[in-house]
């Protein structure tokens, strides 16, 4: 009998030096070792039989989840890499998972491309990869493909991560930024601005100390609960860069409605208020990484609020305002003080005021 010997079991490479060098991006053994040791071992939880250049999906299996694919990509650059409440790895997973989930999709697969500045400590890279793996497990997604590049010192800031996600939308679910109608209630799922304030504090160049943690979280479960309780939900957006002010303007614009929010109903942590007060920043424009803006028909607002509040990521949820028949695209705020002002899009980045 002429039997073929079994294929040798694939052994994961190891990195034995503490620092990433340009050699780790060169396409040779050093690169394979880095990918094996840091990423594959974290993401795949062991040595896969074979590695192809692409992930492959069974279409029939995907179709069991729904009738449309959702596809999104996001790049993550954050300084510092680790901050109270999270790190760049968690952000890279949660951010893309949330971008899928706010469209009503069930998030399934992620890709992960990293650009590493030479000189990065392998241990730091490993911490980030393990954090991504943990975040992916929690979010119920698999990281199925990736890429690694190493660039010269100064060509990027420590590490940039791009994740792309695929999810599936169930039949009949139609969320849209242009679906909001006058009278709809506008909700958020908790305290606003924590992420933006946490990052600014963590940079440490303001000599301000505050115990503010990033709110970064995967919101797919929360959104599932919400959609079950309020099936008429019109639209969901995550309020990341630009804060809720930007999202509200986008919604008002796309749906040709006015939106009025009530400052008294807008959930803010005292520390974040104080932080904004000192720096002359407006919390409505601070970034969030675990907050969504939701529009639902008025009659479903109570059910929606109850569903949100029942989930850990929905603590502090509130109805903050309503869509109306005013000037289309205009967002206003009833101030705590009894006045009224326009909440416009931010022009550039928010810059602290001089005095």
């Amino acid at each position, binding site marked *: 009998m002429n039997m073929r010997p079994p294929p040798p079991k694939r052994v994961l490479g190891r990195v034995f030096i503490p620092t990433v060098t340009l050699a780790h991006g060169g396409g040779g053994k050093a690169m394979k070792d880095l990918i094996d040791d840091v990423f594959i071992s974290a993401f795949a939880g062991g040595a896969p039989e074979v590695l192809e250049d692409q992930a492959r999906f069974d279409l029939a299996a995907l179709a069991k989840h729904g009738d449309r694919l959702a596809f999104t990509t996001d790049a993550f650059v954050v300084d510092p890499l680790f901050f109270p409440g999270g790190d760049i790895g968690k952000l890279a997973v949660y951010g893309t998972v949330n971008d899928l989930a706010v469209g009503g999709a069930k998030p399934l697969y992620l890709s992960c491309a990293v650009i590493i500045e030479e000189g990065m400590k392998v241990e730091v890279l490993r911490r980030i990869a393990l954090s991504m793996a943990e975040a992916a497990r929690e979010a119920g997604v698999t990281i199925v493909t990736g890429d690694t590049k190493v660039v010269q010192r100064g060509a990027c800031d420590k590490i940039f991560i791009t994740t792309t996600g695929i999810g599936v939308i169930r039949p009949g679910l139609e969320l849209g930024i242009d679906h909001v109608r006058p009278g709809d209630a506008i909700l958020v799922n908790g305290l606003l601005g924590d992420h933006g304030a946490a990052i600014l504090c963590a940079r440490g160049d303001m000599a301000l100390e505050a115990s503010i943690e990033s709110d970064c979280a995967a919101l797919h479960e929360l959104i599932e609960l919400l959609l079950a309780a309020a099936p008429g939900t019109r639209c969901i957006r995550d309020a990341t860069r630009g804060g809720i002010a930007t999202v509200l303007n986008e919604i008002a614009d796309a749906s040709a409605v006015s939106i009025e929010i009530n400052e008294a109903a807008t959930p803010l942590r005292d520390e974040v208020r104080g932080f904004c*007060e000192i720096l002359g920043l407006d919390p409505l424009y601070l970034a969030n990484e675990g907050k969504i803006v939701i529009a639902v028909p008025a009659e479903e607002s109570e059910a929606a609020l109850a569903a949100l509040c029942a989930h850990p990521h929905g603590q502090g949820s509130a109805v903050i305002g309503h869509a109306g028949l005013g*000037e289309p695209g205009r967002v206003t*705020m009833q*101030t705590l003080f*009894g006045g009224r002002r326009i909440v416009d899009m931010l022009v*550039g980045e928010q810059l602290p005021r001089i*005095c």
Partner: protein
Amino acid sequence: MKYTDEFRDAEKAKVLIKEIDKLVATIEIARSRPINIMEVCGGHTHSIFRYGLEGMLPDAIELVHGPGCPVCVLPMGRVDDCVSIAERPEVIFTTFGDAMRVPGSKKSLQQAKADGADVRMVYSPMDALSLARKNPDREVVFFGLGFETTMPSTALTVLQAEADGIKNFSVFCNHITIVPTIKAILDSPDLHLDGFLGPGHVSMVIGTAPYEFIADFYKRPMVVAGFEPLDVLQSIWMVLKQIKDGRAEIENQYARIVPEAGNNAALTAVGKVYELREFFEWRGLGSIDHSGVKVRDEYASFDAERKFAIPGVKIADPKSCQCGEVLKGVIKPWQCKVFGTACTPEVPLGALMVSSEGACAAYYQYGGVKKHTTVRAGSQPVTVS
């Protein structure tokens, strides 16, 4: 947020607004034209918009947003000087955040940074001094900007740098003084002002005596005001009360912060490091005598103007820009020919569109909702006031 929320009480605001309404009804001139009250300070402008105060006040009161935003009144030529210093390879140029976007004739500091200049945002001049300590082989320049409010902190930083023997630190001094500017506005022939809200933080440093001429010579009331919304409303009430009583006095609403005599330690530091310039160029207002300060000869080695050759070219304001008229209260921001068209916060033509404290940017961003409501066909008007 204790000690601030007390000054943002909506119920107390309602009471104050009622009192203001009552008072306005008894003022004779309010029957024929609006009462024009200028808030001199950009911080007040910011509060007025942030809390929507204009919409709460009776129509008979017009708030005129004055020249008190130091970022806004910086002329283009000075920004060009900043950029030229910042673009020197040995320089780390440090600045407060909101000065980053002020347009020069060719570029802003933000654009210079994108083009490769080492421009860094700091929160205090002391941060700039620490940068100088950490980077002994670089020249760290701090963009000294602001009225008497920020002047003491740069003066103290210069004194600290001298005491520590730090040689690679200097200040590009663009500090300005408020009093000559108020005088210039009062001397303007097209003036329509009935009273002033005086700057709170400036007065914390200089006290209230320097304003006496406003009451004595120009017969206009001024109330030095705090920055919380109740402060502003109460101060407006106090100005109205003076008008009603036919008085012109300098009153101090912000006594919890502002001592009548000012802050002697701060004034001493300022006097030690700075002296008055003969004149200083203001965007929109032109050259005003004795309205700026420069570093004294004794501290010349900390003066970026002397350390580096700067172009110092005077650039005229764009012709279509009406910032000067807005600053003097002759026209409202939206009455400017280029407001919202050629001049927007994205591409500011005039200085008042630059900083969030600038009257035009504030109108554009937060909306002068009372006066500036637009109605599109087929939609209902936003009823705001």
